[in-house]
């Protein structure tokens, strides 16, 4: 079940970053630009997610103090 959740996350990131990074006509190989865009897209998405979770926790800490 953890395996299924992991697969679902990878699927979700692939779809999100596919729309951001891939050229409109599929190319014969994955270009360098597409590959580095995909990597940055996943990395920055995870950074964004962590940033927002931290913000939320700060807010909760302020409310309960």
């Amino acid at each position, binding site marked *: 079940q953890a395996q299924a959740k992991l697969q679902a996350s990878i699927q979700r990131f692939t779809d*999100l970053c596919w729309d*951001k990074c891939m050229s409109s006509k599929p190319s014969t190989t994955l270009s360098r630009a597409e590959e580095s*865009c995909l990597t*940055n*897209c996943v*990395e*920055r*998405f995870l*950074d*964004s*997610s962590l*940033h*927002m*979770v931290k*913000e*939320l926790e700060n807010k909760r800490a302020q409310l309960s103090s």
Partner: protein
Amino acid sequence: AQALMNSSTERCFTKCVPSPSSSLSSYEQACLSKCLDRYMDAFNVVSRTYMSRIS
């Protein structure tokens, strides 16, 4: 709360990080913080409006 985090993160990432580079800039981070605040505001307005309709 999981669905709320997934949805706000996707929407704010799209708005605030249109071209992901090798790190999050402080501008992008500030945008994400504001965007999360606005998403929570929107969720609260929608929630209040819906509850007053169905009650």
